[in-house]
């Protein structure tokens, strides 16, 4: 099989995924009422979601390459939720939160400390070899894994990219929140990179249902060792970039907003008196 054939033939149009994406879009349309430019972002988010779950990334990640699986996870964790959240315009967000159940849910889940611990521990726990391999072996568990990622990542990004900008964390908190999360996943990436080959044993000698193994191993040059290293550095180095992008975005917004609300003390006798 050639690379082109691989990319043409290994799409897997799983009905549950299609249904899920359609449901997302429908809910969004219901919320939105009127088309706005932000819808493009939401659309891109759904498209990325679809891409990560039905494209060859999924096929390769399921069976052959831990690196492809890592790409899938990173998309679900770092690309899809931010795009979806950015795609909700403030009015729509306000409408959503006017709905009592959503508001109650938000009150519980939008605590930054909780969101941080939930998201980071989800990433770590699912990358423990025993659980990771179990998810590979059992399709149902695999779906649970991906849902876990999507949901906790959405909870994680919510305080940073809240649809109502006024309710987002302030810039200092965002910096601490995101840098610490990035470092926490960097650490996992470092461990995957330098762990002995075969951290996830199923990828050592994958079954070859699509007959692409020689293509991957020889033409692409992805031996199990290289494959695992790529997975590691994807999480370690490239996985940090979305965090950085959001940090810089938040910072830019903050630097540009006017400071009229800042109170200013009248000049007067200053710092010399009290010790």
């Amino acid at each position, binding site marked *: 099989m050639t690379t082109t054939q691989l990319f043409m033939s290994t799409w897997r149009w799983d009905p549950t995924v299609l249904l899920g994406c359609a449901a997302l879009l429908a809910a969004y349309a219901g919320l939105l009422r009127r088309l706005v430019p932000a819808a493009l972002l939401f659309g891109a988010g759904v498209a990325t979601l679809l891409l990560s779950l039905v494209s060859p990334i999924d096929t390769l990640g399921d069976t052959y390459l831990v690196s492809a699986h890592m790409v899938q996870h990173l998309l679900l964790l770092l690309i899809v939720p931010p795009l979806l959240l950015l795609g909700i315009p403030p009015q729509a967000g306000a409408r959503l939160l006017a709905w009592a159940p959503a508001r109650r849910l938000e009150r519980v889940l939008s605590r930054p400390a909780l969101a941080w611990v939930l998201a980071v521990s989800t990433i770590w726990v699912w990358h423990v070899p025993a659980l990771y391999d179990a998810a590979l072996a059992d399709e149902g568990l695999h779906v649970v894994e991906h849902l876990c990622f999507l949901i906790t990542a959405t909870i994680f990004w919510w305080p940073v990219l809240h649809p109502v900008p006024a309710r987002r964390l302030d810039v200092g908190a965002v910096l601490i929140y995101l840098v610490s999360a990035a470092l926490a996943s960097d*650490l996992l990436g470092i*461990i995957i990179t*330098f762990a002995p080959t075969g951290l996830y044993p199923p990828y050592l000698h994958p079954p070859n249902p699509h007959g692409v193994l020689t293509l991957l191993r020889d033409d692409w040059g992805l031996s199990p060792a290289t494959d695992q290293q790529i997975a590691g550095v994807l999480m370690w180095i490239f996985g940090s970039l979305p965090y950085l992008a959001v940090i810089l975005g938040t910072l830019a917004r903050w630097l540009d907003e006017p400071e009229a609300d*800042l*109170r*200013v003390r*009248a000049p007067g006798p200053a710092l010399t008196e009290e010790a």
Partner: protein
Amino acid sequence: MIQAEQQLGARAGATPASDEAGREQLDRFAAMDPHKMGMVLFILSESVFFTLLILAYLLYRAAPAVANGPNAKTVLDIGLTAIFSACLFASSGTIWLADRSLARGRDGLFRFWLAATIGLGGIFIFGQGQEYYRLLTHNVTVSQNVFGTTFFTLTGFHGLHVIVGLIALLILLGLALAGQFKGGQHRAAVETIALYWHFVDAVWVVVFSVIYIGAWLS
């Protein structure tokens, strides 16, 4: 101009009474306690330090020299250490209770929980000491193999941090007995030390998981 500023101030709510007030309403950082902030930063740097020690341990966990020589599975007493660890974990709770008692102005209770924290920390250190003694008498040393090297370095530095914490807590206790914290004064000092103590505890959660539970699972 002054008038304009006063207007600005009035619009935002109140006129600042003093420097401190003018400062604190700048942003959330300006309102924070400097000692606690300093401690958090110190903890941040210590986390990096321990991360490297832990990574070194993880790296050599599966080394051939460790598989054939003494290693966590063959020489460590997991059950006993679990008991001593429980004391350390419990001490995080007692120091929280101490701080809460202080906040409520219950000095006697504060001193009691502080002493309990010191006692629990002391038990942990005693436990670590007897484990070291057993290992060293069984010729498991820092120069025996890379397991010894990384194990003693990691747990030793943690133990050192516990001892430093105990000294700080003893000073707090001394000050408490001298009546320095009457009526909830200087609570920031207690909270700052408590932060450190929680950190030392949290490090042990990781170290205990990596070394002991890791060995038990493998």
